[in-house]
C-alpha cells in the first residue's frame, strides 16, 4: 500500500481533527449541538426550592446572590416581587426566624455585620408584605455552612438567607 494516499488523506483530515479543540475562541456549532446529549443541564440552574423540614421546623432558603449585589445588604429591586411571592408559603401569624448566612471569605469582622444587615433587609420585605408575621432576625456569618466550601459553587450555596417557622 502506497504511503502517499494515506498521507494525503491524513493531511486533509487533520484540520477537522481540531473541530472541538478546547482552546478555540468559538465553540463549533457541532459542539453546541452535542452539548445537549453529552452534558447535563440538571443542576445547572439553581432556583428557590420549596420549604424543607429542618431542626428549626420548616425552612425556606433563598440564595444571597440572587437577592443582593456583591457585599451589598440592599435587596435588589428586581428580586423584591419574587421574594414577596415566596412568602405566601408561610402560615398566617407564624413566628419566623430570618437568618443571614455568608461564606467564610472575609472573616467575621465582615460577615457578621453583613449577614445581620442582609437578614434585616429580607425581614423588611416580610414586614411590608406580611405584617401578620412575628419576626426574629439574626446574622450568623459563616458559622453554619450548608456545605463544605470546596469550590466557588459551594461557597455560593453557603451565602443564603433562611426563613424558618414551626412546621
Amino acid at each position, binding site marked *: 500500500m502506497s504511503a502517499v494516499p*494515506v498521507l494525503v488523506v491524513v493531511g486533509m483530515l487533520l484540520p477537522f481533527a481540531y473541530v472541538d479543540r478546547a482552546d478555540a*475562541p468559538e*465553540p*463549533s456549532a457541532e459542539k453546541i449541538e452535542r452539548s445537549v446529549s453529552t452534558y447535563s443541564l440538571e443542576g445547572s440552574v*439553581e432556583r428557590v426550592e420549596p420549604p424543607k423540614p429542618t431542626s428549626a421546623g420548616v425552612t425556606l432558603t433563598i440564595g444571597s446572590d440572587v437577592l443582593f449585589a456583591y457585599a451589598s445588604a440592599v435587596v435588589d429591586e428586581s428580586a423584591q416581587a419574587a421574594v414577596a411571592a415566596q412568602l405566601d408559603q408561610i402560615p398566617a401569624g407564624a413566628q419566623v426566624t430570618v437568618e443571614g448566612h455568608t461564606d467564610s471569605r472575609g472573616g467575621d469582622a465582615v460577615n457578621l455585620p453583613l449577614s445581620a444587615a442582609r437578614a434585616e433587609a429580607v425581614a423588611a420585605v416580610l414586614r411590608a408584605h406580611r405584617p401578620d408575621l412575628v419576626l426574629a432576625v439574626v446574622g450568623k456569618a459563616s458559622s453554619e455552612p450548608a456545605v463544605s466550601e470546596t469550590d466557588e459553587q459551594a461557597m455560593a450555596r453557603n451565602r443564603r438567607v433562611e426563613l424558618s417557622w414551626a412546621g
Partner: protein
Amino acid sequence: MRGMPTSPHHPRARASIAALSVVAVLGLTACTSPEPDPEPATSETATADASASATPEVSVEPVVATLPDERGTVDVAVRSLVLDDNGTTMTLRVDFTPHLVKPEDGMTLSMINNFFFIFPELLDREHLKRYSVITGEGPQDWLTNEDTRTENDETLSSWFVYAAPEDDVEAFTLTMDGWALEVPGVEVTA
C-alpha cells in the same frame, strides 16, 4: 477558604479525534468510500460563519476586576450572550485581559485565578435563579474552553455554555464572586 486546585488537563478530544482520523484513513485506503458526509465545521469555518452571521455584541461596558491578594487586575469584556439554535442552551462569550503582578507564560483562566477554577455565573434576580456552566460526566468537566491560554496584557477569549433561560428574561447579571465582579444588563440575543 479557597476552591479546588486544577489537575493537568489532557486533550481528550484531540487524542480521540486523532485516533479516529487514523482509523478513518485505514478504512478509506482499504475499501471504496461511501458518499462523503457533509463537511464538518472547523474552528475557521465557525469563525467565518460567526463573522458572516455577525454574533450580536452586547452593549455592556468592559469592567476591571481586582484580584485578591494584590495579584493584579483583569479587564473583563462581555461580548455576547446568545441563545443557541438547539433552544436548550445559551453561550456566553467573554474576553479576559489579565494584568498580573507576577504573570506566567501561557495562562489559562484558572491560572489567572491562582490555579482555582472560576467561571462566570449568570443571575436572574427577577426570578431568583442562578445559572452555572453546564457540566459533563467526568471530573472537572465543564462546557467551556477552559484550556485556552493567553499572555499577560493579552486577551483571552472564553466561552461558556449554560441552560437556556427558563423564564422570559431580557438580561442577566454576570457575576464572578471570587473577583468581586458583577456586570448587570447582559442581554440575551437569539
